[in-house]
Structures are given as structure tokens and as C-alpha cells.
């Protein structure tokens, strides 16, 4: 072997071509086109003046409301992901289970005349029922489907989660039937008010406030309590957490339970807004909430909140604002395109999400 003959054969020109960051160019080009499209579409829409300022406010408030529900569901994804690195695909079903089952509680209350007789107590009961049921479903889910797979490759866990999602969905379909049912009306939720000149429906206000309280409570719980700290520790290193005296299994169950409680609460908030339940209701909000969690930076509780509200507003305002001007009929049909489009863009440019850490180290 002679060292003298060692030459590196690489024509300078080819090296140059190879070095061109094609992917970056394509991405930047793509986003430039998108940006121009969004600006043009928006300009055209505003010029047409089909919607008044009040219309936009209404859409935005609607978006924040919807986003608040996404945010609360998203927290469940984020908590579980932060600990098990599992996309708990069945979390949408946990949410559905609470809201769907509580329908019968609501009906019973309605028949007893309590629902509008003592509405606040009744609303409390509804929340309690929904949260409890969702929590139980979440705990059973963890015990039956996920615990036996602790330590398995992530693909296996994800597939299990998809299976559990289908199973739960169709179990409830079997239990309660396939049709959509309306919740009985709660009169105190009806009505409109104005805050700082912004018209807002009473139920929207309750949803937004409720979500805010839950988020703040959760944040404090995770950052300030011993259990919260244990949850974060388990998320970083299970074995060492055990070495600190933390019962890892119990912490994981607690995490699922909290995710379930929040999903149950989100279920009732959802009912306040949409007033309807069916066995399939968890699926789409579930996916959207997951999108929101990723948007904000999965594993990050605050990120889930911000991501949820952002997604809600974008979804609500985006299609009309951008697409109406482009002459596209029924822009609201394209809402999911906005949601997933945003997800794809965020992951492309900021894989860690808005609040996520940037250092996605590769080697």
C-alpha cells in the first residue's frame, strides 16, 4: 500500500453541485410561494369586503374557543409523550368516552329538572362525571394496552395505540349506538355579552375561562409539586427516577389519569360548544389536538396551550381570510388542510415546535 498514490478524486464542479442545499432551496421556494399566496388571497378577501370587522372578531373568538378545547386535549398527548415517548393515539377516544357517557347523566339531570333548576351544581356534576369516566378509561388503557409493552420499540407502541383507538371507538359504538345525539340544553349557557367591545357568547367565555384555569392549574402542578417533579424525572430517565425512590409505574398511571381528567373536562367544554356527541367525536379533535401539541413543542405543557389556541384561530380565520379572495367556494371545507398544512410547515422549519428546543442533535 503506497501512501504516495493517495489522491482524492472529486472534480471541483461536482462537489459544488453536491453542496448546494437543494432541500433548503426547495423549502424556501415553497414557503415563498405560500407566503405570496396567503398575502394575495388575504388582500383580495379584504378588498372584496364580504366580511365586516365584526365577522372577523366573531371568527377569531370562535377560533380561540375551539382552540381552548384543543389545548386541553393536547395536554394529554404532551404529558404522555413526555414520559413514554408514545403518541397516545387513543387519547381522542378517552375524550370521547367521558363526553359520550356523561350524555346519560345529563339526560337524567334534565328529566329530574335539575339541569336548569340548579344549573351550576349540574354543570359541576357533568364535569365530575365526564372527568371520572375519562380518567378510568385512560387508566385501563394504560394497564391493558401499554404496560405490557413497556420497553418495546416505539413503532410497536404506536401501532398498539392505533389499535386501542379503534377498539375504544367501536366499543362505545356498540354500547351507545352509532348515531349522533344532542345534549339537553342548559339555559345559563345561552346568551351573549360584550367584553371590551368584543361580542362573545356566554358558553364561549366559559370554555375559554375553564381551559385557562385547567392549564394554569396543571402548570403549577407539574412545576411546583413533588409528583410533578417526579413526572418530569420519569420522563427523562426511568431507571434513575426509580433510583431516586420514585415508583415509576405509579407516576405513569398518574400521568394517564391526569391526561384523562383533562380530556374529560375538555369533553364537556366541547359539548358546550358543539352540543353533540357520537362515538366518532374523539377522532378529529384528537388528531387536531395532537397537531396542536406538536405545534407548541410536544412534551411542553405551555406549548400545548399555545399550539391549541393558535391552531383554533388559524383554522377558524385562515380559510376564509385567505381562500375567499382566491375565489374558492366553501372555504371552511378546507379547514383540515389548514390544520395539517400548518403542522407540516412547523415540522419542516422548526421540528421542535414553537416552544421546543432547537437542538435536534443527530449524532
Amino acid at each position, binding site marked *: *500500500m503506497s*501512501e504516495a498514490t*493517495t489522491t*482524492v478524486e472529486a472534480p471541483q464542479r461536482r462537489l459544488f453541485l*453536491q453542496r448546494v442545499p437543494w432541500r433548503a432551496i426547495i423549502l424556501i421556494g415553497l414557503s415563498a410561494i405560500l407566503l405570496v399566496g396567503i398575502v394575495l388571497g388575504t388582500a383580495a378577501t379584504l378588498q372584496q369586503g364580504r366580511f365586516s370587522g365584526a365577522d372577523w372578531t366573531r371568527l377569531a373568538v370562535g377560533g380561540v374557543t375551539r382552540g381552548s378545547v384543543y389545548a386541553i386535549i393536547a395536554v394529554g398527548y404532551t404529558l404522555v409523550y413526555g414520559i413514554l415517548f408514545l403518541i397516545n393515539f387513543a387519547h381522542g377516544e378517552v375524550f370521547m368516552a367521558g363526553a359520550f357517557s356523561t350524555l346519560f347523566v345529563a339526560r337524567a339531570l334534565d328529566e329530574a329538572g335539575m339541569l336548569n333548576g340548579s344549573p351550576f351544581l349540574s354543570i359541576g356534576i357533568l364535569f365530575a362525571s365526564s372527568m371520572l369516566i375519562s380518567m378510568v378509561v385512560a387508566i385501563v388503557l394504560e394497564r391493558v394496552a401499554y404496560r405490557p409493552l413497556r420497553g418495546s420499540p416505539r413503532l410497536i407502541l404506536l401501532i398498539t395505540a392505533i389499535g386501542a383507538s379503534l377498539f375504544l371507538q367501536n366499543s362505545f359504538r356498540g354500547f351507545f349506538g352509532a348515531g349522533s345525539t344532542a345534549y339537553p340544553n342548559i339555559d345559563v349557557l345561552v346568551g351573549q355579552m360584550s367584553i371590551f367591545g368584543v361580542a362573545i357568547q356566554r358558553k364561549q367565555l366559559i370554555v375559554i375561562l375553564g381551559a385557562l384555569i385547567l392549564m394554569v392549574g396543571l402548570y403549577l402542578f407539574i412545576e411546583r409539586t413533588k409528583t410533578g417533579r417526579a413526572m418530569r424525572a420519569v420522563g427523562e430517565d426511568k431507571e434513575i427516577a426509580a433510583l431516586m425512590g420514585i415508583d415509576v409505574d405509579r407516576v405513569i398511571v398518574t400521568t394517564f389519569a391526569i391526561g384523562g381528567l383533562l380530556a374529560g373536562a375538555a369533553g364537556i367544554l366541547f359539548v358546550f360548544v358543539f352540543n353533540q356527541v357520537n362515538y366518532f367525536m374523539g377522532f378529529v379533535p384528537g388528531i387536531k389536538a395532537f397537531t396542536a401539541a406538536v405545534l407548541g413543542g410536544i412534551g411542553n405543557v405551555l406549548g400545548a396551550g399555545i399550539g391549541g389556541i393558535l391552531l383554533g384561530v388559524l383554522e377558524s380565520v385562515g380559510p376564509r381570510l385567505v381562500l375567499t379572495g382566491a375565489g374558492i367556494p366553501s372555504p371552511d371545507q378546507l379547514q383540515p388542510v389548514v390544520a395539517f398544512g400548518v403542522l407540516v410547515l412547523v415540522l419542516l422549519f422548526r421540528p421542535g415546535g414553537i416552544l421546543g428546543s432547537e437542538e435536534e442533535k*443527530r449524532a
Partner: protein
Amino acid sequence: MSLLEVTGLSKRFGGLAAVDDVDFHADEGEIVSVIGPNGAGKTTLFNIVTGFYEHEQGTIEFGGHNIAGLQPNQITKLGISRTFQAVRLFPAMTVLENVMVGQHSRSRSGVFGSILQLPGTKQEEQRIEEKAREMLAFFGRALLPRADELASGLAYADRRRLEIARAMATEPKVLLLDEPTAGMNAREKEEVIELVGRLRREMGYTIVLIEHDMPVVKGVSDRVVALDFGRKIAEGTYEEVSSNERVIEAYLGTEHAETA
């Protein structure tokens, strides 16, 4: 002229400078050791040279060509190959298959050749396997008899060997070894010292290695480069570097300096 020449290289993570204005070179046929405390930027340097990290400043020239900004696979094809600090094999592949993957950039058959089983493809496949066995044979009886066993079934030292064999199969000019003696006992370390010598003698590689074990560094290196906090603090022969005050202060401590 140096085969691998790095000048003014810098890389930060967040606010932290992992590599800070480092000049580094390896001449043809040289064996260079990189030493330094944890977090001194040794592995980051490797990652930049092999294209896993992008750097912020500086040039990386290989055989007179600028290779900064190339993808890792392109750099491998040009002739720089590496091993990893924690052994990273393809555990579910056989020992032979692991090495055959190393031949990837030295072969070309694609989808159509494979589907149609063109004669060229068959020949190439045969050549790849022969080459892989040749690389395994370099390690005597340690690997070749186990060619058809799973990589995950190898003993720890053999895994390290297999990783080197796989890197050799890329037919590199420069071989970067990241802590080849980590987790080895004294006897195995002796063997690594001998192995590194053979790699240069028989294969003609230029070798850069990251190493913590000073006897190993002493045993193999033509030249030693010491890093601390991302900066180069000393360079020279083992004797020069091990008696350098800054190195003693940052890395070796008094006891080692005396024994050196």
C-alpha cells in the same frame, strides 16, 4: 500537503462554543490522537468533519478539496470513514451484512439491476461479499468464522472490531476512531495499539483517534492534539503534549504528568 486540513473551525450549541477556532491537520499516513476532557469538543470535531454537524466558521479541506457542507454519505464516498463512541452496529444484521453495508458507496447497482438480476449486478454483489470477507479476515479468527452470526451476538471487544471492519469496507483514506478502547481491559487495549499500527502499515490509512487512555495515546501516536473547552491548547509529540503545563492543568493532573 496535509490530507485532511481543518482551519479556524467553530461550532456552537446554543450559547456554548463546542469547537472554537480549531486548526487541525492530518498528514498522509500519520496517526494523530486527539485528547482532552469531556465536553472539550473532540467528538463534535469528528461530527463536523464527517458532515453530521454543520459548522459556523472555518474550512475543511480533504485532499485539497473543500468538503464543508457535504452530506455524511458524500464525505464517506470521498474517503473519510469513522467509528462511534458507543459502538453502533446494525444489530439485527449478520456480521457479514454489516460489513457489506460499508461497501455501499463503492458499488452502484440500483433498483432495476436488482429486479432484473442483470449480470453486472450479480458480479457486483459477489465482489461486495468478497471484499467484506477480506475485511473480516483482517481481524484473524475474531470475526470471519462468525460472518453469518448476528452482530448483536458478538462479545464487546468483537463489536468494536466489527465496527472498524465496517468502516474499512468503505475503503477510506482517513479513518476516524472515536475512543476505540472505551470499556476495554488492559490486555484488549494492548491489542488495539497493535491494531492501529497494522491499519496504517497494511491498509495505508491515515488515522485520527480520540482517546482517554494515556498509555494507548503514547503507544500509537505520531502527534497528539489536546483540546479544552473547544479550543486547541497543545499540539506536538506525546512527550511535548504530556509535559505541557496547560494540558497537565486541564486534563492530566499531576500524577500522570510525572509518570509520563
